[in-house]
């Protein structure tokens, strides 16, 4: 493009669109809302990924295994008449064994599904439906994942009664509450292992013991726990577990249900058909996904110590860096044994979580579960913990995983410190707090 006097138009003179953020720093301010350190021209622009509770990167080692099945090994693992089928079946069974060994199960007890949501549906709907002649009651908690709560609600429509156990301010259930809630006609108890929003670990072993004593099936949603915390289905008396592949650096679209064989857990299957997967989940298996999942499971077991040490180190650094900001609070359990370090949920008082997320375009974060992040409603999990609306609104979840680097955590600490400071400098509430006014004593009048 040439200008009227014939010289070449400089890039800076053309009308290039200018990057736009909703929040603009005050004039004279040195902070940038698009990048914590730089003016954005010397470094990339893609946000740092800190949302591993939503999903994880596919590990290159997993992809390497999967590619074999997307190229040469395309046989149907259920074809028993030729070598294509046999080789696929052998690999699928190896994958099943890798998954089983993470939780101390027998490979025959692993049923492949499309993901943890399907496994949860399979459990919450399948067990009570099978035993409906004598059992009419389901126990779960208020902080379960949406798919468990929604399935439970669905079972209420089918005539079952559901008890939603409350949790304490740390997100843990009270075992006495559980004991009292169990009735003669209770079909199952479903309590998640690691919470997806705050990362608390429920006392699975104690829950399993209570369930076994009362001869009630115990299902646990292990999507966030599988491979990340020590799990043993026999020691913990777990009868059924939901597992997801894409939370452990495996492919999306595949998961599994652990279904105990002795004492046998009977399920009314949701999907009927050719009788694959012990008749509990018919349909042809997808070897690329199944074997990718198997490799991810093998790796998460093999790399357990290395990964956990790394996550623990970064988690401690992040917590120290963020909790040093005034008026912040860590949500979750204080006992390190009851808290998964890779999930750090922090409330920043006097800042709205969604505005903070908007001001943090250079970091991929979530204020709660991905499934509900489209709605601006505050998290029901934090509500169940007794948090008020304001606190629930101002919470952000940081997910640390295998591929998070220390450099990224340093960046995040700096960025959050700056942005919280900036947003608070605009908040009249923060100004009042700084002046020593107790906000709870104010009577707000509506207009």
């Amino acid at each position: 493009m040439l200008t009227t006097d014939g010289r070449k138009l400089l890039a800076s003179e053309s009308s290039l669109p200018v990057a736009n953020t909703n929040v603009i720093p005050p004039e004279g301010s040195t902070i940038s809302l698009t990048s914590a350190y730089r003016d954005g021209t010397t470094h990339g622009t893609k946000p740092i990924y800190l949302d591993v509770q939503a999903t994880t990167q596919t590990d290159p080692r997993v992809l390497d295994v999967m590619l074999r099945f997307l190229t040469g090994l395309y046989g149907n693992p259920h074809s028993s008449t030729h070598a294509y089928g046999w080789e696929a079946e052998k690999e699928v069974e190896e994958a099943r064994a890798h998954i089983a060994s993470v939780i101390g199960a027998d490979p025959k007890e692993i049923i492949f599904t499309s993901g943890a949501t399907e496994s949860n549906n399979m459990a919450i709907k399948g067990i009570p439906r099978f035993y409906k002649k004598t059992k009419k009651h389901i126990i779960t908690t208020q902080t379960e994942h949406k798919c468990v709560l929604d399935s439970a609600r669905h079972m209420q429509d089918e005539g079952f009664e559901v008890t939603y156990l409350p949790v304490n301010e740390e997100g843990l259930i009270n075992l006495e509450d559980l004991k009292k809630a169990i009735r003669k006609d209770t079909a199952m108890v479903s309590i998640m292992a690691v919470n997806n929003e705050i990362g608390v670990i429920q006392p699975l072993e104690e829950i399993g013991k209570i369930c076994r004593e009362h001869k009630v099936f115990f299902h646990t949603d292990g999507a966030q726990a599988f491979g990340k915390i020590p799990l043993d289905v026999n020691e913990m008396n777990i009868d059924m577990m939901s597992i997801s592949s894409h939370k452990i650096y495996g492919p999306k679209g595949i998961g599994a249900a652990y279904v105990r064989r002795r004492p046998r857990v009977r399920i009314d299957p949701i999907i009927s058909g050719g009788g694959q997967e012990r008749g509990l989940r018919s349909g042809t298996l997808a070897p690329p996904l199944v074997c990718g999942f198997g490799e991810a499971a093998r790796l998460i077991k093999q790399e357990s110590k290395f990964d956990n040490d790394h996550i623990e180190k970064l988690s401690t650094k992040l917590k120290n860096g963020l909790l040093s900001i005034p008026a912040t609070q860590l949500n979750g359990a204080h006992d390190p044994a009851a808290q998964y370090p890779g999930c750090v949920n922090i409330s920043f008082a006097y800042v709205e979580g969604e505005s903070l997320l908007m001001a943090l375009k250079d970091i991929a974060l979530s204020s709660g579960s991905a499934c509900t992040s489209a709605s601006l409603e505050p998290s029901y999990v934090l509500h169940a913990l007794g948090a008020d609306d304001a606190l629930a609104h101002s919470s952000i979840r940081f997910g640390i995983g295998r591929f998070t680097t220390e450099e990224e955590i340093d960046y995040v600490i700096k960025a959050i410190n700056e942005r919280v400071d900036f947003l608070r400098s605009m908040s009249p509430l923060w100004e009042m707090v700084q002046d020593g006014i107790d906000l709870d004593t104010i009577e707000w009048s509506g207009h």
Partner: protein
Amino acid sequence: MTSVSSRQVLSLYKRMLEKATKFDNYNFREYSKRRIRHGFKQSKNESDPAKILTLYNSAVNDLGLLERQTAISQMYTFEKLVVEPLKKHVRHA
């Protein structure tokens, strides 16, 4: 039985680290470097020749994996992260 010399081990270590830097994806690149260093450091004092041979062979397989996966990473490239310095020639005007 053939034995592996420490020179061979060092050379493999160097080749693996070199390959790891070829990941276009920042997170995979940093992880691979960290994981390779850790792996070699952990087995530094291994003296059993049979064990050394097993470790060596498994690392050769890993080198093959790195070759394939770094090639894929270079074929499918994405924007750089905010913590990643841009190379001079792609820097904005």
